[in-house]
């Protein structure tokens, strides 16, 4: 084991290297590119075995990934944002193939308007695809999650592709001390991929991904895949326990921070949850009983664990770093569905923040806690709220004024 300063992208690449991946179909996109560059350089320098092939699109990249995994090798790939959406047809397709491999998504807001900084609309667009989803909040977690993701993907009870998510810029380009386990320790946790029945071989002809006619077989195969994802819940717990035994780091499906005796709970995913965590400490220091719940596993959705942590609380503030246009926060509806109709369900309050990498400040977390407490006292949830300050609105109006001036000056010249 060595301790190194790694970016989130570097940690993802190290995860793939330690997992001894055989095959990396690749396509560059900001802010993910550093991952495939690192792997390409290691492979070229002979520092890791394996083959990296740059495809001409993410759609083709995912096709090649699924096809190679279905032939029986260990596959790794990575993308972001528009790339994930460009590949979306194949995300659903290869998940239906039951092709086990690991895909990294480095979150970045979606076009339009086109932007580079993160939110979670990209990865949540893949929510229903049949990929399991693990969401990371720090660089160590990225490396560890890649290793755990292979165990999960290749587990007999699951046999599905797994998506590991990290936030662009905040994690992808942020260096943190990361403990890089030695190859022998990783091998003990993650043995070489034995694809068994997943293969294409001359002696054992196999028809994969064939068509079905009618809703009967279609429903059967779709539901069977759903059950495979649900199997991922217990498989995950077992794999995480084994990981903790070997490496001493705990990565539960749902991470609870100062939650046990909390009245008010922040609920967030991804790297911005570390901001909420800092706010929890400050609020605790000020005498308020606030905690943080951070689901790492979003698919399968750890409903039981969420209920265990949240039933009996006074209020839960769900802070969504995404926006389902025409509805609101996606995580909010997921949490609500897990708690609805259960005795002692807390009041749920919805906030939207961090879109396109927009910061969430400590003061905003304090205000969220205050509003959640108020709502609980009233017994009624307020309307969902976008985190956006008067200053930001003033800055936006300045930009609009500039835009008008620019347009008028063009008109004058013409």
């Amino acid at each position: 084991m060595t301790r190194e300063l790694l970016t989130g992208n570097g940690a993802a690449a190290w995860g793939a290297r330690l997992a001894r991946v055989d095959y990396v179909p690749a396509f560059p996109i900001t802010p993910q590119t550093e991952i495939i560059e690192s792997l390409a350089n290691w492979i070229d320098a002979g520092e890791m075995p394996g083959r990296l092939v740059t495809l001409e699109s993410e759609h083709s990249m995912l096709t090649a990934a699924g096809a190679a995994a279905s032939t029986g090798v260990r596959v790794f790939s990575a993308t972001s944002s528009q790339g994930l959406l460009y590949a979306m047809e194949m995300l659903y397709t290869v998940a239906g193939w039951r092709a086990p491999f690991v895909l990294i998504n480095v979150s970045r807001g979606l076009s339009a308007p086109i932007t580079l900084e993160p939110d979670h609309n990209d990865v949540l667009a893949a929510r229903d695809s049949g990929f399991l989803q693990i969401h990371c909040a720090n660089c160590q977690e990225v490396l560890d999650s890649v290793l755990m993701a292979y165990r999960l993907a290749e587990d007999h009870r699951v046999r599905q592709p797994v998506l590991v998510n990290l936030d662009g810029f905040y994690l992808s380009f942020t260096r943190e001390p990361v403990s890089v386990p030695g190859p022998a320790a990783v091998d003990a946790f993650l043995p070489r991929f034995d694809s068994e029945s997943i293969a294409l071989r001359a002696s054992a002809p196999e028809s994969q991904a064939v068509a079905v006619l009618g809703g009967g077989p279609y429903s059967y195969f779709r539901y069977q895949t759903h059950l495979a994802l649900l199997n991922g819940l217990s498989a995950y717990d077992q794999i995480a326990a084994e990981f903790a035994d070997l490496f001493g780091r705990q990565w539960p499906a749902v991470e609870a921070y100062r939650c046990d005796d909390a009245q008010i709970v922040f609920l967030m995913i991804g790297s911005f949850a570390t901001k909420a965590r800092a706010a929890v400490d400050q609020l605790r220091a000020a005498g308020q009983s606030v905690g943080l719940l951070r689901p790492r596993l979003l698919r399968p959705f750890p409903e039981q664990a969420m209920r265990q942590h949240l039933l009996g609380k006074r209020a839960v503030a769900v802070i969504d770093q995404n926006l389902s246009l025409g509805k609101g926060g996606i995580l909010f509806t997921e949490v609500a569905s897990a708690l609805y109709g259960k005795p002692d369900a807390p009041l749920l309050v919805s906030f939207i923040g961090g879109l396109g990498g927009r910061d969430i400040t400590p003061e905003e977390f304090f205000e969220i806690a205050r509003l959640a407490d108020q709502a609980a006292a009233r017994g009624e949830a307020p309307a969902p709220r976008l985190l956006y300050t008067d200053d930001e609105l003033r800055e936006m109006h300045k930009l609009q004024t500039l835009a008008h001036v620019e347009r008028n000056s063009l008109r004058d010249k013409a």
Partner: protein
Amino acid sequence: MSKTMTRFHRIKDLPSTHLLGTGTPMCAGCGGLQALHEIYDILGERTVFVNAAGCMTLLSVYPFTPFRGSWLYTAMASAPAGAQGVRDALDILLQQRRMPATEDLQVVVLTGDGAAYGMGLSATSAAIERGLDFLYIVYDNEGYGNTGQQYSGATPHAARTATSRTGQGFRGRKKDLFEIWVAHRPAYAATVIGAEPLDLARKVEQAMAIRGPKLLLALAPCPTGWDFDPRLTVDIGRLAVRTGIWPLKEYVDGEVLHTKTPRPRRPVEEYLRLQGRFSHLFEPQREEGLLAELQADVDAYWAAAD
């Protein structure tokens, strides 16, 4: 191609046992299935067919398949990328000695013209440019046949389709996919047709002997899409060659050679008038201008080729 190297000299040299199973959901008289039968007999079962969305996706419907070898359906746009993944995985397994060489497979893409001339072109171009060792079979029935024959990038000038029903038919011109392949300098490219099985067999044989990206572009007379009686599939196929509308050729070692030069060439009209999609050229009155234009296109091609 050196004819002395081939094991196919006469029709009776062609395989007499057929590998592809019967009872598929393809239409009666499907020229694509005819070509596939002939190709598969020679390719054999140590193959994996990576399929793009099209008519032939329905060859393998759970729990049946007519293939003795393997099959992987992908999507419409990315079958060559699927072939890349399979080929790379097999190479990795061979290289690491995790699989004996006897388990290796030939990777074959099976695609219609809808994907090959349009949506799948970018993935195909990239697979050729990467030098992928695969065989790319196109059954070209000159339209989106599986959805009821709307025009595609492969539809010939003046053909009536479900989306060019009236007037003088399709206004565009058939894209030259063979030349697009040749521009990539692939290992091999050939046009074939099921109605000329000996020429087809030699080309499959030739393609199998070469590593790299290889095209077999099969014109696929389509009774339902082209509107003719299924019993005419072979006649129409032969006329496509004898009128010179479908030149049989191959690209090998940097050169394009015609493998069958129709002499004398029959008038294009003979090919056109058997097909309902061109009936507006003859009824209610002859469209002399269009007919002359279509004949002139073919004449110009052969003038340049000779």
